[in-house]
């Protein structure tokens, strides 16, 4: 099973393609499919076939949605690919990966604390670990474009 199989698996879920600097392959998927992609990756290639490097959240205020980028490193080729999804800004909820992929813990907790994305099924989400306490008391998410900080 080479890297081509991994790309074709990601391709089968994707609704769009692209390139992220520096020449990383980008697969856009539906938010409801993100968990299924990772389940399929684990099932076909095992935990040794890839790892989740980080989760990056970006607030696209003008488009009314939040962009989530999952950076995946394919092993043993060490090739980084990006799994991108968009969730609505008013109701930013997506399925958690932490029960099938423990490495998602830090990325999900940080994205929740700074951007307010709710990862459904993650029992470790809380405010105030990354964000300062005064912002938490005001209920603000610092990486939101309209937070005013």
């Amino acid at each position, binding site marked *: 099973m080479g890297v081509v199989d991994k790309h074709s698996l990601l391709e089968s879920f994707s609704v769009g393609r692209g390139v992220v600097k520096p020449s990383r392959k980008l697969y856009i998927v539906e938010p409801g499919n993100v968990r299924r992609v990772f389940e399929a990756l684990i099932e076909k290639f095992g935990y040794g076939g890839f790892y989740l490097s980080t989760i990056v959240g970006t607030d696209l205020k003008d488009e009314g949605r939040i962009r989530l980028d999952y950076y995946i490193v394919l092993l043993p080729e060490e090739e980084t690919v990006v799994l991108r999804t968009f969730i609505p800004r008013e109701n930013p909820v997506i399925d958690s990966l932490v029960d099938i992929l423990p490495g998602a813990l830090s990325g999900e907790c940080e994205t929740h604390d700074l951007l307010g994305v709710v990862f459904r099924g993650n029992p470790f989400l809380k405010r105030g670990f990354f*964000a*300062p*306490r005064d*912002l938490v008391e005001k209920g603000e998410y*610092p990486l939101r474009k309209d*937070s005013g*900080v």
Partner: protein
Amino acid sequence: MSQVKQSGRAGYRIIRYSPWLVHFNTGACNGCDIEVLATITPVYDPERFGVKLAPSIRHGDILVVTGAVTKKAAERLKILYDQMPCPKFVIAVGACAIDGGVFSKSYSVVGGVDRVVPVAAYVPGCPPRPEAILDGIAKLLDLIKKGEVVNDGCSGQA
């Protein structure tokens, strides 16, 4: 100021030849930390001034602070400072420790070290050269020797 000069001289003799450093990073990018670590290597030989790292904050005489002080680090910095014995001096190393640097307006940053604890010496630079840090320490020791140092943390009563 003059009161510090009068009452401080005798007490400061305790640390004049053996100022022990404690290094604390309050949110630096690690650039200044690498330079501080380079400063205490034998290449720059700080032990000719008696300078060495203290094994604990409770044995420290000089607190070397690097990095912009974040809101979370500010609480820890105050706790560390309160644990130091008198007399105690703080050196702010790098542009961020002086006034927050490029991070000064960030939502998570208080500002410079002097917003939290009294500072005796500032070393500018981004990052400062090891020679500059050592020069800052030596100049502070010179001020201690002359009894002209301000902000000993104990109102000159040490």
